[in-house]
């Protein structure tokens, strides 16, 4: 029976990871993620979880240790943010290439410099092309649910890919709120014991982490791409099973008040929840505006995006990261790319908000929706906008 508990979301994430019975946790704490590895180490030290907690000296070692552990058949977990993710970046694409189902929780934080410990998505957006499954949680309940789902998706024999689960640093990690926690029995029933495809052992001869010449590399990359795209089937199955067991729905793209909408906001992460308040207010004023909340980032939900924007005149895509000198926000550029070949395309604008933890109140979402309504008639005013910057 699920228990309703108030807890800091980062601690809740750690408690949920413990429910998933990982064998090895190798993690290095970094603000704002600190409570996840710290609390997990407490749980292991208290004897509540039978796992090996490896106190590594860096994030590079954290992911490397997970790699070795997973290669030996262990269920492995790590967590990081920002510079920590960059420090382990060398190992990140290797994990997916080796098809090791490591789960990583990222407390999204701005990349340095200048040094900034607060929330934005520049860290995960720097790791777009690495072949991991990537999902975003918008509130505490989603963090709990999607943590359990991540292990199941990752370890599925048709997937065997690492998964990163993203939650906004501070905006989510440091907030105390109520969540429903599944019981240990419920998690055990949902998430069976890990059965690795292969595990390094003296009795099982296998080499992992091999070399590939140009003559075969393209085929390997094609195989990697196909398996990531195909993983969507399993993700949807796992979400369906979750809904049946726990009554909570998960879709790659969630719609909020989109019926009859001519203008849409599209957001990813916890800012999507604040945007709902703006949508409510604008709808009360009679504006036909709705919201799309992106939950699945990789594999990118092309079909769901295309279906969601069919009768819409303009979309404002909200990003918490910017590609300097490039096409604006990463979510924006991918959404625009997804819609390029459609016969009827809405006007799409890129609004970059909340960099480095800058607060984005409800009023800003309203202003952006009003801008989208304006450009629906006049066309985009610029390539992209870093919203709310003083001095423009």
């Amino acid at each position, binding site marked *: 029976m699920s228990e309703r508990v*108030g807890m800091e979301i980062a601690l809740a994430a750690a408690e949920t990871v413990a429910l998933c019975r990982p064998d090895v946790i190798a993690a290095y704490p970094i603000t704002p993620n600190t409570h996840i590895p710290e609390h997990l180490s407490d749980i292991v030290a208290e004897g509540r979880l039978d796992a090996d907690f490896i106190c590594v000296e860096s994030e590079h070692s954290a992911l490397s240790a997970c790699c070795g552990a997973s290669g030996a058949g262990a269920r492995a977990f790590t967590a990081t943010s920002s510079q920590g993710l960059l420090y382990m970046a060398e190992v990140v694409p290797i994990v997916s290439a080796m098809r090791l189902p490591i789960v990583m929780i990222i407390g999204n934080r701005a990349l340095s410099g200048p040094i900034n410990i607060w929330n934005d998505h520049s860290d995960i957006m720097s790791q777009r092309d690495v072949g991991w499954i990537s999902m975003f949680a918008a509130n505490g309940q989603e963090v709990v649910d999607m943590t359990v789902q991540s292990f199941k998706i990752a370890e599925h024999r048709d997937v065997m890919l690492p998964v990163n689960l993203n939650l906004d640093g501070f905006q989510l990690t440091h907030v105390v*709120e109520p969540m429903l926690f599944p019981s240990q029995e419920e998690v055990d029933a949902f998430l069976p014991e890990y059965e690795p495809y292969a595990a390094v052992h003296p009795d099982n001869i296998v080499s992992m982490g091999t070399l590939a010449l140009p003559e075969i590399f393209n085929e390997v990359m094609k195989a990697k791409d196909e398996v990531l795209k195909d993983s969507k089937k399993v993700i949807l199955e796992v979400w369906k099973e979750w809904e049946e067991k726990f009554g909570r729905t998960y879709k790659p793209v969630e719609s909020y008040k989109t019926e009859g909408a001519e203008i849409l906001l599209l957001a990813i992460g916890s*800012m999507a*929840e604040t945007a709902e308040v703006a949508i409510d207010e604008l709808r009360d004023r009679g504006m036909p505006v709705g919201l799309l909340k992106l939950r699945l980032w990789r594999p990118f939900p092309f079909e769901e995006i295309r279906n969601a924007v069919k009768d819409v005149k303009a979309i404002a895509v909200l990003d918490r990261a910017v590609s300097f000198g490039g096409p604006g926000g990463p979510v924006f550029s991918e959404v625009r790319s997804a819609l390029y070949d459609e016969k009827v395309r809405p006007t799409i604008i890129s609004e970059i908000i909340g960099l480095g933890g800058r607060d984005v*109140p409800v009023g800003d979402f309203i202003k952006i929706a009003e801008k989208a309504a304006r450009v629906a008639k006049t066309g985009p005013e610029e390539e992209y906008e870093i919203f709310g910057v003083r001095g423009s």
Partner: protein
Amino acid sequence: MIEIRWHGRGGQGAVTSVEMLALAAIEEGQYAQGFPSFGPERRGAPVAAFNRVDNKHINVRSGVYDPDVVVVLDPSLVGLINVTEGLKQSGVLVVNTSKSPEEIKEEVQFDGAVAAVDASRIAWDELGVPITNTTMLGAVIKATGLIKLQSAKSPLEHRFGRVAQKNIKAMERAYNELKIATAN
């Protein structure tokens, strides 16, 4: 939805206050958020922490700009910072002070309700330390009626273990000794 801003100094337990209030509301079956002003703070620096309480899921996750309640844990902050910034006229300012609520009302020039209790003295009496976070919890509960005093006991017991009863006593005293100057 009720929004609360707490003012304290780093090390005075403002973050614990918001956590206790959030957990108490959640125990009652309400929805609550409790969060600090994000980031590192050195001891003694003015800090803020926030609560939101509602009877349904709270989806706003930006900062609190126009709170319904402002709580001041340290008397020295009144006058140092604008504690009533954004505070709704229909709201209430709850202050730890040895002055009367009328005096505080005059000082901060606030037309709404002001509540005052000498939480520092209560904390010294009951806890032996001038940490007023749990004491002021009683003041907030009395001033707002947001949750039942009873609901705060379990989170305090869980959090403070051996010293929980002292903290609960301090909270109850503040609840009983709070004085309120009503709105104009």
